[in-house]
């Protein structure tokens, strides 16, 4: 496989969640969430009632992938930030290593404030994200996860019954 898997433990989840909570508060935003570049949701903070975070994560990842493709066509490595402004709701997306930080905000905040606070949060999140895919973390997880080796054919079959 070309990429190491992402392994998220409780401790790292807590650290990420704390950064997201602070960011959401400081940026006066509605929701802040971290997803991986393939659209898998890692952690969410805020009131997500009525918000389909799974679909939003997948579309945000697709959006970043598409704009990243465009960036490469003009000789850029990637476009590290994306902003979408609507009448009431706005989105700000920031690339942090193999993850994306997505902030949903409305007229209570402003793009400038969100950009500023997101930059600070990115600096805090980067080492945590790098740790999620570090070989040592993955090796430890693999050792911890003897449980996956114990998955039987019957376990797998039972999912489809």
């Amino acid at each position, binding site marked *: *496989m*070309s*990429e*190491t*898997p*992402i*392994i*998220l*433990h*409780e401790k*790292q*989840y*807590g650290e990420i969640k704390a950064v997201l909570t602070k960011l959401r508060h400081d940026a006066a935003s509605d929701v802040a969430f971290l997803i*991986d*570049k*393939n*659209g*898998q949701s*890692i*952690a969410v903070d805020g009131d997500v009632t009525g918000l*389909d975070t*799974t*679909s939003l994560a*997948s*579309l945000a990842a*697709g959006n970043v*992938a*598409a704009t*990243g*493709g465009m960036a490469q066509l003009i000789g850029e490595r990637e476009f590290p930030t994306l902003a979408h402004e609507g009448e009431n709701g706005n989105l700000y997306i920031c690339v942090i290593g193999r993850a994306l930080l997505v902030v949903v905000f409305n007229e209570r905040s402003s793009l400038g404030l969100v950009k500023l606070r997101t930059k600070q949060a990115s600096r805090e999140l980067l080492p945590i994200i790098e740790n999620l895919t570090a070989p040592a973390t993955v090796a430890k*997880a*693999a050792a911890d*996860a003897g*449980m*996956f*080796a*114990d*998955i039987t054919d019957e*376990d*797998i*079959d*039972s*999912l*489809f019954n």
Partner: protein
Amino acid sequence: MTFINYAAREINCKIVYYGPGLCGKTTNLQYVYDQQPNATRGKLISLATETDRTLFFDFMPLELGSVRGFKTRFHLYTVPGQVFYDASRKLILKGVDGVVFVADSQEERMDANIESLYNLEEHLGSHGYDLKKLPYVLQLNKRDLPTALPVEEIVAELNKKDEPIHEAVAAKGTGVFDTLKSVAKQVLTELRKS
């Protein structure tokens, strides 16, 4: 690339349906979506043109149940089949855990099948994957059409590594779940190995 979330006790995997234009990739997903109970199904996102051709991708999350206390969630994607959306196809393959190649059984689409399969191998290679090592299923769709070639003929052209082969009529649901089950099982077996 499997994402194991110990905090939420979830295993997330990505499966991509690949194949030439109009082979039935979206129809496969639509059928799976239609069969899910309202209470548990997520949304089917379809980024399509005004004429319902896939423009970027279709996406649906599928929760299958728990294995060893971990919820298994599959993210199902299709690629746009039309030749000129090549850059999009490549993007969607990034991080894939398993691939379903949906072949159109009609004689006049064999060249398109072969070209698309070649395209799949090329894009997987550019992401560092090898089709021969990846969970992979070949689905022979549109078996009900009078112009469908015999299975042996298609298999002789498209078979890559003794992968599971499923005959299907996706519009009626025939073979759709067998295909999905087949690739999902390989993905989970791969997880067990790793």
